[in-house]
């Protein structure tokens, strides 16, 4: 009886404190989106954002983010991960005006951040994949991330970010990943956040 109660309690506790990972390639807007959630519901942002790729170089969390939407409530642990890439060249950062020394440091931290992000795949309950809707969605990094989530049976929500930009093409992302819900948003302008919250609540039901 105690075992059963403990198991039931475990289920409810898990459902009430789901770990939602924010994954995707660099500069897609993972931290911008995570910041909106954290600022809206905890009053504090999660991390800094920048036009320089690999601004997020460590996994960062926000515990107990209590979200209320259309009369429903849930408590999440937001896990914002560094953008996953297959190559890191410190010279790319120099192009953004970063000194050579800082660029090398940034590259070193970025490689370690990617390893950390990959390790976290084993520890998230559901994933929000944030993609730049102005970019080609068929990159191997995107397919590799999704392939791994599929293999691990982790529920996925695809966010097509940057819909405020002229080159944005949400339909191309929908066509690339027809088996997952896709929500077009602009994290920069906080556009379509209602649709995002609808989709986020639906995502947690699949865990």
């Amino acid at each position, binding site marked *: 009886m105690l075992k059963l109660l403990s198991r039931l309690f475990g289920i409810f506790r898990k459902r009430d404190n789901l770990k939602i990972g924010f994954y995707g390639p660099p500069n897609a807007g993972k931290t911008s989106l995570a910041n909106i959630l954290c600022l809206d519901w905890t009053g504090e942002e999660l991390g800094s954002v920048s036009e320089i790729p690999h601004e997020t170089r460590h996994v960062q969390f926000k515990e107990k983010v209590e979200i209320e939407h259309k009369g429903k409530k849930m408590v999440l642990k937001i896990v914002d991960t560094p953008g996953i890439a*297959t190559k890191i060249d410190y010279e790319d950062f120099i192009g953004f005006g970063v000194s050579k020394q800082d660029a090398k440091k940034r590259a070193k931290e970025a490689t*370690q951040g990617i390893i950390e992000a990959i390790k976290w*795949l084993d520890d998230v309950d559901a994933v929000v994949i944030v993609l730049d809707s102005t970019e080609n969605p068929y990159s*191997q990094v995107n*397919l590799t991330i999704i392939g791994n989530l*599929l*293999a691990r049976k982790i529920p996925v929500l695809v966010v097509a970010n940057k819909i405020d930009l002229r080159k944005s093409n949400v339909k191309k992302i929908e066509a*690339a990943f027809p088996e997952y819900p896709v929500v077009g948003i602009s994290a920069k302008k906080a556009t379509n956040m209602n649709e995002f919250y609808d989709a986020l609540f639906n995502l947690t039901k699949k865990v």
Partner: protein
Amino acid sequence: MVKKNIKLRDMSIHIMPYSEIRELSITERVKKILNLILGNRVVILQGRLRPEEEIRLIEDTMAMVDHIKSFKGIELAVVESSKNESFFVKMRRGIAQGLTGESSSLTVIGPASIVKEIKKDPSKIEVFLG
């Protein structure tokens, strides 16, 4: 410009039948591929790696970028032959089969210093050397 020419002259292509890695563990497979990449080879693998092998390849690549001064990483792309099946169908079948080497896909993996970009959409692949 001269530097780029030297890089391209030193490059070679390694065609890898799946049988070459079939009996290897995930660690050995990734190690074998990365050793070839470090030797300036572009690897064309018959079939595709499993999702966990692809992500492990990225993980180990990053560990090497961190430790080997001149190594910048890899470019990676999988070319699928059937246009009528979605990525999910192919991936699900691959996962269900456990082995993905028997499929008619091809995997292209090259050092980022040589393979500048692999542009891919569902029906074609373009490899840019630089």
